[in-house]
């Protein structure tokens, strides 16, 4: 956003004020996430910077909350549960969502708008409502307090993300590429693996990542549908914040921020790859 040469002095000043404001808003967005990283190394059981931390005294810092986390049976069990539920529901949501997206992007799909609205609805309906509804229904069919129940519930919540990302990828898919491949002598199988799949995969993978993070971060439905056996990470954090607030939560939070950075990088790489394959390059 360069300042045009015809800008007046007032406009120049406004331009810098605007940039300053934007910097403050970015600080509001990211600052809170960054502030917990140093806080999680606090040697004291407080949620704020101690005197020793501010003077950069090494004694003010420690890894005790990380040690707490990695040696706690409850936390490790919760991580395991989160991964079991997250991975299973991601696989289910990705398969169902991708197949459905193939149908939805067909020109001949009947009642496309209505069906799309229905498929997206788990994302729009407030989680507490889905959770209450699933609790009533799953208790009736003996799925409450089981892994299967939680996995099915999370699959339903993850599906909109897969459907949205894969349909978006498919809608920009250039079908002449398939004809081109055929005319160059590739058979349908070869065309699918060499042309279609590489172009569609990034969309499927990012849909899967969205579905995974949805499940991995979900509290409300687990709170209602799961039993003590299926305690996940978010539930452990939730009860940690409500009951005995300990800085172990900050250590977990830091690890989760790092995880989301990792996911974000993966997504960005996927996006670039897909753009490169399609021959779109950033300016």
């Amino acid at each position: 956003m360069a300042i045009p040469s015809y800008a007046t002095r007032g406009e120049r000043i406004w331009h810098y004020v605007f940039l300053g404001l934007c910097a403050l808003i970015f600080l509001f967005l990211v600052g809170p996430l960054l502030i917990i990283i140093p806080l999680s190394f606090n040697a004291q059981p407080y949620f704020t910077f101690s005197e020793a931390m501010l003077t950069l005294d090494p004694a003010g810092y420690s890894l005790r909350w990380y040690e707490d986390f990695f040696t706690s049976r409850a936390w490790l069990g919760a991580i395991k549960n989160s991964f079991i539920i997250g991975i299973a529901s991601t696989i289910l949501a990705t398969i169902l969502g991708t197949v459905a997206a193939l149908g939805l992007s067909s020109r001949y799909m009947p009642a496309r708008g209505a069906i799309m609205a229905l498929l997206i609805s788990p994302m729009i309906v407030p989680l507490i409502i889905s959770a209450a509804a699933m609790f009533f229904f799953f208790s009736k069919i003996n799925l409450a307090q089981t892994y299967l129940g939680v996995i099915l519930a999370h699959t339903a919540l993850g599906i909109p993300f897969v459907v949205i990302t894969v349909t978006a990828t498919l809608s920009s898919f250039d079908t002449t590429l398939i004809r081109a491949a055929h005319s160059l002598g590739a058979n349908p199988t070869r065309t699918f693996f060499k042309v279609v799949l590489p172009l569609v995969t990034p969309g499927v993978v990012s849909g899967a990542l969205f579905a995974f993070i949805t499940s991995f971060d979900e509290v409300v439905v687990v709170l209602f549908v799961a039993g003590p056996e299926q305690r996940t990470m978010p539930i452990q954090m939730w009860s940690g914040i409500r009951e005995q607030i300990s800085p172990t939560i900050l250590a977990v939070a830091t690890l989760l921020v790092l995880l989301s950075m990792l996911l974000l990088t993966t997504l960005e790489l996927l996006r670039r790859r897909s753009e490169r394959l399609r021959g779109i390059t950033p300016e």
Partner: protein
Amino acid sequence: MSESPASPLTTADGVPLKVSLRRAVRRSKVKAFLLVSPLLLFLGVAFVMPIVEMLWRSVENAEVSTYLPRTVEALEGWDGGSLPEEPAFAALAEDLRTGQEARNLGLLSSRLNYEKSGMRSAISRTARGVRNLEPPFRESLVEAHRAWGELDTWRLIQREARPYTISYYLAAVDRRLSLDGEIVKVPDHLEVHVGLFWRTFWMSAVITGLTLVLGYPIAFLLASLPLRHSNLLMILVLLPFWTSLLVRTTTWIAILQSQGVLNDLMVTLGVIADEARWQMIHNKTGTIVAMTHILLPFMILPLYSVMKTIPPSYMRAARSLGGKPFLSFRRVYFPLTVPGIAAGGILVFILSIGYYITPALVGGQSGRFITNYIAYHMQTSLNWGLAAAIASILLFVVIVFYMVFNRLIGVDKVKLG
């Protein structure tokens, strides 16, 4: 092309072209639908059926007819003018005896207690001694508990024998059905839900407004920078978007609490005294700040995708036609961004009124939403019918906004990341 207009075009194997085309289209339709059907089936079972079941539960009224079948039968045709005759009392004694033996009177007594306080103890006390009751039951039941001698009790039983009820919906809006069949307000100290609905709506409106004020400049900056730079800054928007909701809520607790980072900073800087620390959490402020932060990316992303489509030459044209910067912005740029504002605004508002976790953790008493009451009735008061009714009302509001959103923008235009 065909020589005689009478003979229709045909394919190579002699089928008329129209028929063949129609068949091909139908085949494609069926194929597309078959691809979607497994997902439709899955969501039907795992998502739609639970919601329908919940809606049904909000009007279901099976307790009295299930647990007092004989009494209900005996009361058929009773005019409600004076206490029923002995057969009704005998039927009640028999029903209570069956219920006491099966130990399943709990649901019944809670259900009747919602309508008439004191019914829980009337039923449990009578049921405990039901074995020793001697006929005539009309006297012995009234002796066991005076509630059975009241006309209202019997009229209530007769009324609640109906399979459906609107009393949960009435309770959800702080009303109840009086024993004369009129809709009356509950006493003031029990009035909670309507206030909470309004609070949820106006706090969500405030949060939506704040995300717009904060999100608009950011989206504008991102849309006007060259892609290379805006992609980098976009990461700053997407990072919170991708970070766990609980993490973001936790960090606001760490920052805002009275012994937290912000208060410590203010005390150190001498802005406030140590004894006068700001109370920024476990109240409305906490909910609004944390939720504005959490929902901000949902405002920025739709705004950005709309602003990206506005050619920068429009603003230059407006300037060259003599518009002052503010005027050009107001008359040219801003109107073009209104679809983005609508999309982001509705999205943030829908998400906000349904939020549960953040208000529950940082909202305290005054920053709580109606969703917290759904959870309360689900888990603590165990009045599931009422929880279902509140949830259904909220669901209705969300669906209305969702339909507006769908009409305005279209769900298939939603972009992620």
